[in-house]
């Protein structure tokens, strides 16, 4: 019997431990996407309050490599019911400093940059230039217009949320050529007496909590789409999500496209730009899962029937990955190839591979020897003496 080849591809132990549950999600893009998130992605959070705290905590947890925090305020006791990254001991500390500590306690791998300033029309463009995407977590209309205008000039997509009382709103502005900016939809700043605020009108902490978490989700999908890893699409572009916490209703409505001729900021930016110049939104195209090298004819072909997300986490050298459901239409080409006279089928625990063996025997010519790997990857890992904790997460 041929000796099993050693376990080969595996991201580093800490990444596996820390991120395995998100890397396993179908379409996430596995360890490769995680690496891109850690090494290339920069997200700016403007406003470290009821929206910014949950958004930052989740983005740090997800392993976004660089998070910028912008806020000039200090923590007040009246913030604590909704600004969940802060504790009573943080009262009167600078929000950016206290939030940084909370994020690093959660995930020391994340690099945090503090911008302990009020984002102004003068400073906004310089502050947000290094980032891929901006989260508007501010608490007033003036800041919202300032952040929006800077995003249009710097061509940064803007994930914008707001919450007052029991109502919340979420939108992705300035994404792609046709996605409207905030000013396209709300061309004129409302008069001060019509600008509600949490300080004046109150807010239940859960409402910005819900919106901040959704903001982090859309920001994550957006940066992954921009970096071309996984199967991500920012799904909120051109739409506005309305959350009614009183009746617990979510709905999304269709917004107008970018108002290139009437929006005060888009008109300037796009008149100056040649119409053919596309927004720099896409980086490298997706790379496919690790190529399955074929083994020399004398060796058995290892056919791994687990989902691609599990395969990407750890697999046998040279193994071919065809998920169980895809066997009927993808396996025959390998079965008819003369090089593969001996096929060993492996799955996670040796159960589905038995069904796969039965199926393949029906599809294959008689001369092909097909057998099951008893106990699957779990048995192989324990035989090989792979670090127990690592193996538990990785398979």
């Amino acid at each position, binding site marked *: 019997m041929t000796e099993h080849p050693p376990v080969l591809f595996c991201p580093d132990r800490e990444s596996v431990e820390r991120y395995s549950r998100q890397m396993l999600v179908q379409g996430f893009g596995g360890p490769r996407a995680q690496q891109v998130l850690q090494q290339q992605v920069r997200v700016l959070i403007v*406003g470290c*309050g*009821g*929206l*910014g705290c949950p958004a930052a905590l989740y983005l740090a947890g997800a392993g976004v490599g660089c998070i910028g925090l912008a806020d000039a305020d200090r923590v007040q006791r009246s913030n604590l019911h909704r600004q969940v990254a802060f504790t009573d001991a943080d009262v009167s500390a600078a929000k950016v400093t206290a939030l940084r500590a909370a994020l690093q306690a959660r995930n020391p791998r994340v690099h945090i940059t503090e911008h302990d300033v009020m984002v102004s029309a003068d400073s906004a463009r310089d502050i947000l230039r290094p980032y891929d995407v901006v989260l508007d*977590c*501010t*608490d*007033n*209309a003036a800041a*919202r217009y300032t952040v929006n205008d800077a995003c249009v000039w710097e061509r940064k997509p803007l994930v914008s*949320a*707001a*919450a*007052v*009382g029991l*109502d*919340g*709103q979420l939108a992705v502005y300035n994404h792609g050529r046709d996605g409207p900016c905030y000013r396209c*939809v*709300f*061309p*004129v*700043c*409302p*008069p001060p*007496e*019509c*600008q*509600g*605020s*949490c300080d004046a*009108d109150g*807010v239940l902490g859960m409402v*910005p909590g819900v919106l901040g978490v959704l903001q982090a989700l859309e920001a994550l999908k957006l940066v992954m789409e921009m970096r071309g890893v996984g199967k991500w699409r920012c799904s909120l572009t051109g739409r*506005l999500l*309305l959350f*009614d916490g009183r009746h617990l209703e979510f*709905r999304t*409505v*269709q*917004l*107008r496209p970018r*108002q290139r001729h009437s929006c005060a900021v888009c008109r300037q930016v796009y008149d100056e730009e040649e119409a053919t110049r596309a927004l720099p939104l896409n980086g490298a195209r997706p790379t496919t899962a690790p190529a399955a090298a074929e083994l020399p004819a004398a060796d058995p072909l290892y056919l791994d029937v687990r989902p691609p997300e599990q395969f990407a986490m750890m697999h046998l050298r040279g193994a071919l990955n065809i998920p169980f459901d895809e066997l009927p239409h993808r396996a025959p080409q390998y079965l008819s190839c003369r090089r593969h006279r001996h096929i060993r089928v492996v799955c996670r625990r040796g159960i589905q591979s038995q069904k796969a063996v039965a199926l393949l025997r029906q599809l294959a010519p008689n001369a092909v020897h097909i057998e099951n790997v008893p106990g699957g990857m779990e048995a192989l890992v324990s035989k090989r003496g792979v670090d127990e904790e690592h193996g538990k997460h990785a398979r």
Partner: protein
Amino acid sequence: MVQVKLEFGGGLDAIVADRTKRLQVDAPVRTLGELITWVRRNCIREKHDMFAVSEATVRPGVLVLVNEVDWELEGTTRYELQPGDHVAFISTLHGG
């Protein structure tokens, strides 16, 4: 007379008679612009300028939706109402 469903969101329900979020009305109007003028006179009980400052248009920061679609895509004030239309007035929020 056209029967339409009205909705007030983002805090606008606080200035509507009965502080209600949803209303069904028979309005003697033809266009969305006329409806806004009618709603300001007949449905808003206080702080009328929080809804609309002048005739036929809402104040800045209020998004008008016709059947869940931004009114900008429907011709704004000139849109001709159909029986059963759902018209929502949503105030943009700024808090966080």
